[in-house]
C-alpha cells in the first residue's frame, strides 16, 4: 500500500516535470479538455436554469388550479376535431357553475384575445389581453405591485379599466408613471388601475403574466371578440392541494349538469391542470438534457482523443527516455503509472480551467436564467476529467510499459 502511494507521488512529480518541460504542447492538448469540460458544465447549468424557469413559470399558475376549458392542453385520447366540435363555454355556463360549486376557493372566467396596446406614441403589438372578473386574482398566485385589481363594480359594469403585467408596464411607461395613466386598446381609452408584480417566468410564453394585460371580460366581448365566437375558460382554485381532486370531481359533475349531458355521453369539456403541464415540460426538458449532454459529451470525447493522440506521440518521442528508465530499474507498472498520471494531470488541469470558465459563463447565463453552477456539476467535472485522462492515457501508457528496454535504448 505504502509503495503504491510512493509510486503515485513520484509518478505525479515526474508528470509535472514532463508537463512543464513541454509547455506549448501541454497547453494545446489541454485546450480540448478545457473546451469539453466547459461545454458540459455550461450546458448542464443552462439546462438546470431552463428547468428552474419552467418550474417557476408553471408554479406561478398555481398548483391548486383547475382550468375548465373547451380545449384540452394535452390531447392524448381525444382527436382535435372532436374538441373543435364541442359546444363553446360561455358566461352562462360560468354563472351556473359558480352558483352550483361549493368546494372551490375562487372561480373566475377568462377570455383571451390579442391586441395592440398603445400609450401616446408607444405601441405594443400582439399583447395577450385577458378578459376576466374581479375575483380573477384569487384564482392565481399573482400579487399587485402597485394599485389594485379592478373591483366587482368595475367588472360588472364593464368599465374601461386595465391591469398591466410588469413587462407591459415597463415598456409603455419607462418612467414608472403607469398607475392612473391611460392606455388605448382598439381605440378605447382604459385607465390603469393596477400593475402586477414581476413573475420572471419568460419561458411560459403566452401564459407569461408579465406580458399580459387584464380587463373586465365584458370589454373583450364588446370590442375584441364576440361572445358567441369564443369559448371562455373557467379558472377554479381549490382551497389547498389535498382538495384538488374533490374539487375536480365536483367540477366534472356540475359541468355535466350545466351542459345537459346524459349519462352515456362523454364530457364535452376538459379539466386542465398544471400537473399535466409539468409532466409535459419535464419530458421536454429530459429530451433537451439528453441531446445537450450528448452533444457536449461529444466535444469532451474529441478532447479525449486529442489527449490519447498526443500521449502516443509523447511515448514515441520519449522512447529513449523510457529505455533509460527501464534500464535503471523502472518496472512496467511504474512506466504505466507515469504516463497515465501524466495524462490524468493534464486532464485535471484542463478540467479545472474549463470549470473556472464555466463558472464565469454561468454569471452571464444568470442574466437570463435563474441558475448557477451546481456543486454536483463541479465534482462531476473533476471526476470526468480525471477519468478521461486515465482512459485516454491508458493505451499509450501500455505501449510505453511493454517496450523492450534493449530496443528502446537503441532508439534514436
Amino acid at each position, binding site marked *: 500500500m505504502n509503495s503504491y502511494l510512493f509510486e503515485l507521488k513520484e509518478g505525479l512529480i515526474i508528470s509535472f516535470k514532463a508537463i512543464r518541460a513541454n509547455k506549448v504542447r501541454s497547453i494545446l492538448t489541454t485546450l480540448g479538455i478545457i473546451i469539453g469540460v466547459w461545454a458540459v458544465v455550461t450546458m448542464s447549468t443552462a439546462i438546470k436554469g431552463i428547468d428552474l424557469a419552467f418550474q417557476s413559470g408553471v408554479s406561478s399558475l398555481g398548483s391548486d388550479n383547475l382550468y375548465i376549458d373547451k380545449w384540452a392542453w394535452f390531447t392524448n385520447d381525444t382527436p382535435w376535431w372532436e374538441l373543435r366540435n364541442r359546444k363553446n363555454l360561455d358566461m352562462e355556463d360560468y354563472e351556473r357553475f359558480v352558483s352550483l360549486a361549493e368546494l372551490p376557493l375562487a372561480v373566475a372566467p377568462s377570455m383571451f384575445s390579442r391586441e395592440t396596446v398603445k400609450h401616446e406614441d408607444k405601441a405594443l403589438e400582439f399583447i395577450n389581453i385577458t378578459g376576466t372578473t374581479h375575483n380573477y386574482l384569487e384564482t392565481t398566485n399573482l400579487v399587485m405591485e402597485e394599485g389594485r385589481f379592478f373591483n366587482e363594480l368595475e367588472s360588472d359594469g364593464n368599465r374601461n379599466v386595465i391591469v398591466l403585467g410588469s413587462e407591459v408596464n415597463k415598456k409603455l411607461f419607462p418612467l414608472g408613471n403607469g398607475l392612473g395613466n391611460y392606455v388605448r386598446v382598439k381605440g378605447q381609452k382604459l385607465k390603469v388601475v393596477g400593475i402586477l408584480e414581476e413573475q420572471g417566468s419568460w419561458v411560459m410564453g403566452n401564459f407569461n403574466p408579465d406580458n399580459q394585460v387584464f380587463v373586465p371580460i365584458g370589454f373583450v366581448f364588446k370590442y375584441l371578440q364576440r361572445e358567441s365566437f369564443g369559448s371562455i375558460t373557467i379558472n377554479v382554485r381549490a382551497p389547498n392541494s389535498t382538495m384538488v381532486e374533490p374539487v375536480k370531481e365536483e367540477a366534472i359533475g356540475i359541468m355535466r349538469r350545466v351542459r345537459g349531458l346524459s349519462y352515456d355521453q362523454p364530457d364535452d369539456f376538459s379539466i386542465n391542470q398544471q400537473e399535466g403541464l409539468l409532466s409535459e415540460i419535464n419530458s421536454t426538458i429530459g429530451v433537451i438534457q439528453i441531446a445537450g449532454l450528448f452533444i457536449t459529451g461529444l466535444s469532451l470525447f474529441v478532447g479525449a482523443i486529442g489527449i490519447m493522440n498526443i500521449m502516443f506521440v509523447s511515448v514515441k518521442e520519449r522512447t529513449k*527516455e523510457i*529505455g*533509460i*528508465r*527501464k*534500464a*535503471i*530499474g*523502472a*518496472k512496467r507498472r511504474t512506466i504505466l503509472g507515469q504516463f497515465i498520471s501524466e495524462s490524468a494531470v493534464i486532464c485535471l488541469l484542463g478540467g479545472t480551467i474549463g470549470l473556472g470558465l464555466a463558472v464565469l459563463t454561468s454569471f452571464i447565463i444568470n442574466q437570463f436564467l435563474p441558475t448557477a453552477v451546481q456543486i454536483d456539476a463541479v465534482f462531476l467535472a473533476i471526476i470526468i476529467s480525471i477519468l478521461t485522462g486515465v482512459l485516454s492515457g491508458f493505451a499509450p501508457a501500455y505501449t510505453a510499459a511493454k517496450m523492450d528496454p534493449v530496443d528502446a535504448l537503441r532508439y534514436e
Partner: protein
Amino acid sequence: MNIINIEHIAKIYQVGSEEVHALADVSLKIDKNEYVAIMGPSGSGKSTLMNILGCLDTPTKGLYEFTGVNVSDMNDNELAVIRNRQIGFVFQTFNLLPRSDALHNVELPLIYSGIPYQERRDRAKEALGQVGLADRMDHKPNELSGGQRQRVAIARALVTDPSIILADEPTGNLDTKTGEDIMHLFHLLHEQGNTIILVTHEEYIAEHAARIIRIRDGLIESDTPVVNRVETKSNGISLQS
C-alpha cells in the same frame, strides 16, 4: 564466490525464415571485484552478451546465475528489480534524462527502489561528490561537458551500491584526455572493491582491465589475463568519500 556464472548460453533471433545465432554457446564466470573487459568486433555478439549480463535481455538457452540467483527465466519486472538494485550501467551515449538536472538523474534509480526523499537526496549528493561533481548538481546534461556527463552517469551507476558496474564503450564519445580521466575513475572504483565489466572494441581501453574476454561469431575466442595493464594517471581526478 562468483557474481556471474554463465553456462552454455545461446541467443537466437528469428530474422524472416532464418535463425541468427547472436550467441552460439558461451560459458564464463566472473568473481567479485574483478575488472573484466569484453572485446569483439561489431557483429560478434558482444552487445548481445552485454544485454544478457546486464539483465536487459534473457538468453534463449542456457543458465545465467547472477549472485547465485538464476535469472535466465525471470520476467520483465523481476529483471527490473535486479537491474535496479544490483547493476550499474554506464553507456557510451551517457543516457541521462536531458530535462532533469544531475541530482535528479542520479537519484532516479533510488526512486524506483522506493527510497524516501531525504535519504535518496543525501545518497545522490554523496555519489555526485565522489565523482567530483558536488558543484554541478543543479546542472542539466546540456550544461555539462562530455566528461562531466559521463561522471554523472557513473554516479548514477554507483548510487545504488550495485554488485557490478557494466560499462558499454564508456569512452566512445569522449576525447582521449577525458577518456583517460574516466578510465582512471573506473580504476579507482575497482580499487574500492567494485566489480567492473567493460565492453569495448578498443584494445588500449581494454588493457586497463585485469582480464580480457574476446568474442567472435557468438563464441568466446579467448579469455586471458592482461599482462601489461595500462596505468592511469590521476590528472587531479580522485574519488572522494
